[in-house]
């Protein structure tokens, strides 16, 4: 793993250990955006507690000129601002790395390491001298370390200045204060240390066509562009910012010009049962409607998901996954809702799932989710996670085709209903399992009384075995149709003949792509298939058929993706080798690389 073991020019990991509620998020964001503006690929990850103030929090920035932005498993520069976690932070620093700490207070004598460089800056002392008031002193201490890093890493000061001017365009005094704090840190470092360090930054031009955006914001924007007019939700980390984003964009884009009234309705429900019930009501009535939640919400929504499956009501549900089971770790990431979402609810039930791998795909798959939900008249669950949803990713600018028109699926309008005196809601004239639906209020001929109980083609209550089974078989047919409509997997082939393959989903992508590239450099060729939807479809089967040994990389303990593949596809279970990561942190490249490397080598030796 030597390729990932050492930082260098435009290739480094900075980790900032702070206390939550002290304003460090602004300082960290400033730092990351400055690097982004310098044209160097960058991503920041926030490891935060489920808490308002006073607990440890970390921000990890990976900079990589090649664009590999998954966790590298390395820390080149640790900014240790939290005495409580100092010992842990020092231990985590990679050999040869640098630790920066606030030397206002003496460092414990036991906290030493010979193989790293330790730099002390009296940040609190400097800020106490320069600023007045408790709050400004705390906030400026964080901004001051950005100044130190600017000197150590060669960050362009003019970029920092313009970022601050943009951020505080209405409060010029704050620009001055922040610049003063940055200068304090910068000057101290320049005078006391050999600047810049070996790991440093140099301007590139790789980011002109990119943005920094988190997945929840991008998904919210996708909902706006898809034409969703209704959303209901119940607050839950890490999905809350998706609905905040949707509201913000709606307030911006969706005000009726003359009246100022809303061309949208967002309701905060009393719980997740209410949220999905409302979404079903709106979807049944003909609106594009969605809700967003996380694992515990999925559990609560399951009964209604079964209802929507059986009554065939379209809706979109975003599951921004977090570490389970139960309350689990609300602010840590995982992909552990795969099985519970695929089969949510009792009885023979199955749901269409989409797996975005980054915020750009949260945007595009959000739009796709509405098209699929209405085409298939069923819930579509977008399986995001905290890593994608709440971190700022560097993504290509989002694209939109103005020629796009929503696929509203099979709907009879008033004109069609005028010609249809005997409308049958659950009749399948086309043989694809999908029936025609009608919206309430359009035409008396379109009326039907739907239900979660057994129903015949006319939507009427039935306990007849043949009616019931016909309906269940048609739903199976519909799911088969779904497999032909969902987004195809992304294949990254090595271009070499190989019997080795790796399958993964969602936020594993960055780590897997990097690992596969590094393995390729070593002459170990592994084809990579990133699945983007469930049901899986023919191309997934073809990949399984084409490779003898397949690694399945996922972020849960129980190998849920592997289980789903074994259940649904024609594959020998033993041919699938799990690589599992489930400690709540985002997947890192070395975990994938090492597991594949060892297995392939072992196999070659045998």
């Amino acid at each position, binding site marked *: 793993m030597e390729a990932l073991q050492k930082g260098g020019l435009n290739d480094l990991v900075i980790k900032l250990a702070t206390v939550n509620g002290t304003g460090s998020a602004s300082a960290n964001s400033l730092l990351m*955006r400055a690097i*982004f*503006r310098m044209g160097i690929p960058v991503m920041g990850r926030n490891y935060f507690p489920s808490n308002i103030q006073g607990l440890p929090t970390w921000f990890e920035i990976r900079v990589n000129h090649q664009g590999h932005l998954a966790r590298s498993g390395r820390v080149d520069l640790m900014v240790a601002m939290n005495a409580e976690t100092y010992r842990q932070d020092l231990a985590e620093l990679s050999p040869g790395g640098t630790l920066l700490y606030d030397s206002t207070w003496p460092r414990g004598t036991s906290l030493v390491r010979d193989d790293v460089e330790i730099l002390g800056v009296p940040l609190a002392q400097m800020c106490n001298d320069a600023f007045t008031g408790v709050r400004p002193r705390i906030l400026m201490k964080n901004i001051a370390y950005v100044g130190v890093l600017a000197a150590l890493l060669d960050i362009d000061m003019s970029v920092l200045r313009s970022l601050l001017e943009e951020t505080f365009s209405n409060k010029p005094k704050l620009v001055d204060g922040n610049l003063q704090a940055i200068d304090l840190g910068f000057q101290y470092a320049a005078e006391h240390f050999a600047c810049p360090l070996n790991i440093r930054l140099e301007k590139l031009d790789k980011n002109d066509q990119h943005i*920094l955006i988190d997945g929840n914001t991008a998904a919210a*924007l996708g909902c*706006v*562009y*898809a*034409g*969703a*007019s*209704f959303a*209901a939700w119940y607050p839950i980390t890490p999905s809350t910012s998706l609905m905040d984003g949707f509201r913000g964009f709606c307030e911006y*884009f969706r005000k009726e010009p003359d*009246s100022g*009234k*809303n*061309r*949208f*309705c967002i*309701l905060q*429900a*009393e719980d997740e*049962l*209410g*949220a*999905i*019930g*409302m979404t*079903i*009501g*709106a*979807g049944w*009535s*003909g*609106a594009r*409607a969605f809700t967003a939640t996380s694992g515990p919400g999925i559990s609560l929504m399951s*009964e*209604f998901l079964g209802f929507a499956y059986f009554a065939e009501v379209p809706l979109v549900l975003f599951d921004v996954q977090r570490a389970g089971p139960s309350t689990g770790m609300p602010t840590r990431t995982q992909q552990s809702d795969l099985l519970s979402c695929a089969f949510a609810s009792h009885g023979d039930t199955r749901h269409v799932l989409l797996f975005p791998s980054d915020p750009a795909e949260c945007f595009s798959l959000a739009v796709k989710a509405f098209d699929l939900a209405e085409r298939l008249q069923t819930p579509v669950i977008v399986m995001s996670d905290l890593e994608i949803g709440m971190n700022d990713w560097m993504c290509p600018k*989002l*694209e*939109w085709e*103005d020629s796009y*028109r929503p696929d509203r699926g099979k709907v009879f309008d008033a004109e069609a209903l005028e010609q249809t005196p005997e409308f049958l809601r659950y009749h399948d004239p086309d043989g694809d399992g999908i029936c025609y639906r*009608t*919206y*309430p*209020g*359009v*035409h*008396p001929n379109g*009326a*039907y*009384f*739907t239900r*979660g*109980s057994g129903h015949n083609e006319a939507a*009427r*209550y039935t306990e*007849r075995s043949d009616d019931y089974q016909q309906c269940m078989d048609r739903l199976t047919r519909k799911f088969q149709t779904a497999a032909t409509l969902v987004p195809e997997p992304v294949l990254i082939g090595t271009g070499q003949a190989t019997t080795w393959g790796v399958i993964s989903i969602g936020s594993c992508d960055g780590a897997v792509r990097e690992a596969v590239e590094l393995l390729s450099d070593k002459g170990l060729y592994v084809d990579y298939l990133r699945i983007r939807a469930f049901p899986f479809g023919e191309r997934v089967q073809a990949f399984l058929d084409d490779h003898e040994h397949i690694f399945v990389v996922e972020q849960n303990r129980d190998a849920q993706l592997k289980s789903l593949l074994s259940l649904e596809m024609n594959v020998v279970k033993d041919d699938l080798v799990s690589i599992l990561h489930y400690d709540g942190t985002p997947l890192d490249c070395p975990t994938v690389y090492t597991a594949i490397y060892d297995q392939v080598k072992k196999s070659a030796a045998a």
Partner: protein
Amino acid sequence: MTFIAKPKINYAGQVKNKLGLTVHDYEGTISTLCAGCGHDSISAALIQAIFELEIPPHKISKFSGIGCSSKTPAYFLSAAHGINTVHGRMPAVATGSNAVSKSLYCIGVSGDGDSLSIGLGQFAHALRRNLNMLYIIENNGVYGLTKGQFSASADIGSKAKKGETNEQQPIDPVKTALGLGGTFIARSFSGDKEQLVPLIKAGLNHDGFAMLDVLSPCVTFNDHEDSTKSYAHTRQNFHRAIRMDFIPPAAPISTDYGEGKTRTVELHDGSHVLLRKADQDYDPTDRSGAFTYVTEHQKRGEVVTGLLYINAERRDMHGIAGTIDEDLINLSFEDLCPGADALAELQNRFR
């Protein structure tokens, strides 16, 4: 059990409303409830009221949860869309539907189990958000489909058919609604169609959550002696505190009922409810007074009926949410999607 279509019988001289529809055009399939079930009388009252209001049947959406009561939307308005949801969760589905198609009249039918046990939370929150719907609780104090367990509205001392006596405090939907800020709170009796029909009309035209608790005896499991929800007990003890007439927009209001005993409240569509009070001191716009009145009569074993509280001023869910006047489902895609140029411009924020 399966459904039985109701044959349409047409004969000369049938009364038609201004839409040219007869009362049969407002019917549903044949009820499969027990003969004599109070719920069927309520369905009949709904049919009568909506026929007389001359609402096109397909401009109504029907909602229900689970239970005997929740089957009934099949038994009225075949030409209206309906959705029989999951147990206790009908208010959420009605909320979402009304949010996007506000021009439709929204009728929810629930029961005491569906609204006061499993669905108490949803019932309370639909009330709080003042969802514009007529919400009928067909209240019989018992679980019918599972054969006779007490529901949360069973009175203390009421005996189940198998002999068990209820000792738990009942949840009274009227007092619950008063406490939760309900804006239209009424109680009636399935056997009192004269009272029920105008209440339904007023409830449908009230811009907000119209809660109508209808005592509706269960002939199979809760109509015996020692039941406080039987036909006999209800007939003996129900007390019309207020008679109510519904007066459509522009119709004349007659006031010859005697000084101090009548009061009119104007609804948003210009219709009126005319309240004729049995008790001169009763004020149906006084929330705490209504609570006390209902409670005092309960102590005497009396069930007070009528439109017990009304507030036509408070904004409904749409007023609070600030939505446009037209139905959200009628917005064009152009109105909803900001387009490529706006996206390009917006993304300057993300750099």
